[in-house]
Each structure stands twice: as structure tokens, then as C-alpha cells.
């Protein structure tokens, strides 16, 4: 699914990722944890193709193809999805228009015909329900005036509609209360399948009580410094990151 080898990346001339390795197979859920500033969000944006987040060394293969040969929109069309930590607000463009444009683009890439608006509306309403958002949110501007939790649920709704092969969730749990966290976790769990992989970037072990990962990695100073199973997350919860950072 995703194979990252010796990835180095810069943001504004500063090296953030310094030789990162990660293998994600189909159906696996990987959690990436780590202290502030370790490069977790950078990894998500480098993979999604954000301008200014530049890979300077290393190789990333996504579904067998060289990821860096693709533009951001091609990566998305090929099945890579990043749930943003801070989704932007786009007044004037309705959520519905945005979702339909995204779904049509992805369907088009898969060789599927565009959905007519009735069929799409039905899908979108179901997705709203699944993430516990009122249908009014479809008519509103994209993320416009949404609360933090509503923005995260809107990200999850996009994930559900776009059905990616690989979903990277960048701190989707931060700032959520327990109920919202449960909604997100239920959504992700319902999307788990042998063909779909997840990378959960998070600060806290809490999320992993709800979404059980196959692997847990610690990212510190731009590298994966320790990998293990879910018990590693519990250990981090007790001991913090200090003992690993000094080893990095």
C-alpha cells in the first residue's frame, strides 16, 4: 500500500523529516505518535502533496507507483486521503458542491460515471447521518462557522464518501469530547476493510482505545524511533516520550 524509505523533507528550508521509514500493508491500521514538533503533520502534508513541503531524499511508493511523480490531485484520485488537522473554511462554496466535485473527480479517475444529483444527495445525507451532522451542513459554506468537532466530522464524512485506499488522519482526535471521539472512531471502524489502510497521527493514547491499531510507531526528531504493537501506546502514556527522544 504505502512504502516509505529514508524520507527526508524540508519546510521553508528547514529539514523536518530525517530518514523516515514506514511500511503499511493493505488492511492495516498504523498509529503514529510523538511529541510536538517531531514531524507528524509534516509527514501527512508531504504525502498529500502540499506546496512547500518538499521531499529532498528517499522514496515513497503508493500502490506500487512513485508518489512524488503525482500532483496532489492525482494522489487523491488514486486513493490517498488526508483528514486535515485544521480544515480550512471556504465561504461561498457549499459543502454539497465541494463534496460532489471531489466525489466526481475521484469516480472519474476510477472510470466510474458521475453521480446524478439525486443519487449524490442521497449518499451525502447518509454520510451526514453516519457522522452525526445535521443535513443543513450540506448547504452551508465548506467548514464555514463549523465548530472544531464539526470540522473533524466533516473530514470524516469526506473520507466516507471518497472511499480512499489509504486514509491519513492528522490529529483528528484533538479537541474532541468523548462523544465526538466515539463518532469518529465508529466512522473509521466502519470503514476498515482488508483493502483499506489507515495511518492515525495522534498525540494521545485515548483514540487508540476506540480504534485498535495493528502497529504503533513513535516519531521523534524526524524519524521513527520505536515501533511496536498497541501496548507501546500504553507504555508511552505512562512514561512519556523523554526516554525515546534521548535515544533518537
Amino acid at each position: 500500500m504505502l512504502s516509505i524509505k529514508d524520507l527526508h523533507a524540508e519546510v521553508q528550508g528547514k529539514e523536518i523529516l530525517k530518514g523516515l521509514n514506514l511500511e503499511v500493508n493493505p488492511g492495516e491500521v498504523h498509529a503514529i505518535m510523538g511529541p510536538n514538533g517531531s514531524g507528524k503533520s509534516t509527514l501527512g502534508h508531504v504525502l498529500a502533496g502540499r506546496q512547500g513541503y518538499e521531499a529532498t531524499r528517499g522514496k515513497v511508493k503508493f500502490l506500487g507507483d512513485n508518489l512524488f511523480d503525482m500532483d496532489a490531485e492525482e494522489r487523491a484520485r488514486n486513493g490517498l486521503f488526508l483528514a486535515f488537522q485544521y480544515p480550512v473554511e471556504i465561504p461561498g462554496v457549499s459543502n454539497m458542491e465541494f463534496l460532489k466535485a471531489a466525489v466526481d473527480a475521484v469516480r472519474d479517475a476510477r472510470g466510474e460515471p458521475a453521480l446524478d444529483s439525486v443519487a449524490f444527495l442521497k449518499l451525502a445525507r447518509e454520510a451526514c447521518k453516519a457522522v452525526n451532522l445535521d443535513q443543513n451542513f450540506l448547504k452551508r459554506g465548506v467548514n464555514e462557522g463549523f465548530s472544531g468537532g464539526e470540522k473533524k466530522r466533516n473530514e470524516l464524512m469526506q473520507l466516507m464518501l471518497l472511499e480512499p485506499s489509504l486514509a491519513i488522519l492528522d490529529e483528528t482526535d484533538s479537541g474532541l469530547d468523548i462523544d465526538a471521539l466515539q463518532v469518529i472512531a465508529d466512522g473509521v471502524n466502519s470503514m476498515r476493510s482488508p483493502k483499506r489502510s489507515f495511518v492515525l497521527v495522534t498525540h494521545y493514547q485515548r483514540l487508540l482505545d476506540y480504534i485498535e491499531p495493528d502497529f504503533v510507531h513513535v516519531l521523534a526528531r524526524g524519524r521513527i524511533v520505536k515501533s511496536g504493537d498497541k501496548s507501546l501506546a500504553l507504555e508511552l502514556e505512562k512514561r512519556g516520550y523523554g526516554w525515546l527522544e534521548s535515544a533518537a
Partner: protein
Amino acid sequence: MSDFVQQAVQLAPSAMPSWLTDHAKSSRDFWSKSTLPTRKTEAWKYTRLRPLETGNYLNAAKPATADASLIQPSLIDGLNVHRLVFIDGQFQQALSDSDMPEGAELVRFADANERQVDSINQHLGSLFDRENHLFSALNDAWLKDGLFLRFKKNTRVEQPVQVISLTTSQEQAFSIAQRLLVLVEEQAEATVIEHFASTNEEQNSFTNSVTELVLEADAKLHHYRLHLEEEQSIHIGGVHAGLGRSAQLNSFQIALGSKLKRLDVVINHQGEGAHCELNGVYLPQREQHVDFHTCIEHAVPNCTTNEVFRGIVSDSAQAVFNGRIHIHPGAQKTSAMLSNKNLLTSNKAEVDTKPELEIYADDVQCAHGATVAQIDEQLLYYFLSRGISRQEAEVMLSFGFINELLNQVHHQEIGDYLRPLLAKRFAADPKMTRHIT
């Protein structure tokens, strides 16, 4: 005297209702002594009048045939309007509605009765001075007819009045003087849509339009002014509004670009407690030019203004926005907000924006701001990360920038009418606009 000034004087009509003669003559005298603004004239610094001077105008177009298909594109779906149609400046009885909406009185100056003449005389030209509004004075000088819309005291007229002014292309250039006087009496409520359009891009008309909006105490007017004329048309227009005590004006204006478009909008708060919402959108492209000069005169206390203008300038087009708010001495407790945001979609596009606040009272709330920017890369990235192409993302973002204002118009049918029309401006390929229309 420049060629155009001389020509303009000769273009003045010889026949007009007798009660208009004095008014027209004094303006003609004034005009014949004036000089055209140059780039040194502050109010015309960024707008050249050269396109105007190159024309050799007839004072009337050939009589148009009242072809109903011509106005088809100007019909607003779902809105039951009372329609009045002018083609090339000439009133089209056959294409216009005759049943007056209840509570309204619609009459051409030439047909006005004595009472109506008194009322017209009382208000005509009362809201502007010729020195500062040279082209409104020219409209005076060219006066031979006009339209008087009166909404009677204490009535709420549900049916909007749509005045369509259509220009066609003709062999020889011609000029049009369009005059509209709207009187909304005490506690009356009305909707007026001024709709300027052209039949095609090949235009050689010069439209000089003046609209006067008189709102008496507690009157409420929804006003729309749609400038949808194409490429080669020239339009210099003025809207002058006077708001009485607790009157409320909601005005939405839109201008596509053309060879030369200059629009002055002046709102006079004359009675305490008056409120004005003024929103506008301009979208010049190719080599087009649009110039909006707005001026809000807060002459009395306790009035509020909320003004928002947004523009998208593409290709080598130029937009000018000058927004002045003038708070007179004693106009305490005024609240006035002005925002002007511009999006440039090309490196050759130009916008000259200048918000001006002039405040002579100390207990007021005022804010103004102007921005000029290109499409936000961060927003664009969000679209790309969802698989949407860069080109479609740019179209959707540009459209969204003005759609925010379209979403706020009181009559949603007008927003719905404008959306597909404007979407086409952002991309010729319907695939790029399919998600916004």
C-alpha cells in the same frame, strides 16, 4: 470646448414636455461650459474617457422592433415581476406589462398628469449637484422623457418592478439618456430591479443613466441594479438616493466589465435612524474596465451603513473602486462599515481601490478595509487534496468569493438567475462550472 462636449450639446433633444424645458435648458447651459475630466481630476484619475470621445453619436437609435425574444435572456425565473422594457432607449409598450401593481403608480414623464408633474418637479435632480456629477447633469440636459415610479404611502408592494434597458448593435453609434425617479412614500415597501443588458458583444451605444431613489420616512426599498451589458457598450451612470427618517435601503449592484463602465452611487442619509445595506460585485475581464465610485453621506445622527463590494479582475482588465463615507458634524451615533475585497486572477489585471473616511463627529463607529489578493494557495490545496483539478478549484474559489454576496440578496430568485450567468465568466468549459451551477 472639447469635441465630445460640443457633440453632447447638439445631441440634446428639441422636443420635450414643456414643464421639463427649464430644467433641461439650465443643465444644457451648464454642460456647454464644462470641460471633460482628465487624469488630473481626482474622481476620474483611473478612468479614461477616450472610448467615449471616439464615437460619433446619433441622439437616438433607429426604432427597434419589439421582438419578444430579445428580452428572453433578461427574464428572471420564478420571479413574478411587473416588467417595463426599453430597447435602445425607446419604451416598448408591447413588451411591457400594463396592469399596475396595487399601490404603485408607474408613468412616463411625457404622460404624467398635473399631480405627478408636481411630484416629479419636486424631486427631480434634488439629490445631486451638477459640479460633482457632470454626467448626471448631461442626463438632465438630454432629458426628454423618463420613468416615474411611485409607491404609495402605507402600502407594501410585493411585486417587484423590473426595468429592462436593452441595447442592440446598430450601424451608427447612438446615445441613450435613461432616467428613473423612484418615490417610496411613508411606510411603503417596494422592490425595483434595474436591468441593463445588450443583445450581443458588438455594441456601439453610450448609455447615460440616472436613477433617483427617494425614500420617505419609514419607507423600505429593495433595489437591484444589474449591469450585464457586454464588451463594446459604454455606460456612465449614477444612482442618487435620499433616505428619510428610519428609511431602509437594500441595494445590490453588479457590473460585468465593458469598454467603459463608470457607476456613481451616492446615498444620502437625510433622516435619523435610516439604514442602508449596499452590496456590489464587479467582474471585468479581457480588456474591460469597471469603475464604481460610492459615496455615503451621513448628514444626520443615528444612521447606519453597511457596504460590501467585491471584485474579481481577470486577464488585462482594470477595476476601480472608490468608497467614500462622509460623516458630517453632528452626525453622532453613526455606524458605518465599508469593506472592499478584490481577487486578481492574472498578473496583468489591475485594481485601484481607495476607501475614504471623512469624519467630523466624535461619537461614531466606523470601519473600512480594502484588500487585493490572488487565490489563496492554502484553500486551493484543500481542493487538490480531494482530487479536484486545479482549474476547477480556481473556478469554484473565484465563484465562491462573489457567491457569498449573491447568497445574501433578499430575492433568492435574483441570485439564482445570476449564478449560471456569472459562472460562465469563469470558464468557457461547462465541465469546470458544473458543480457551481
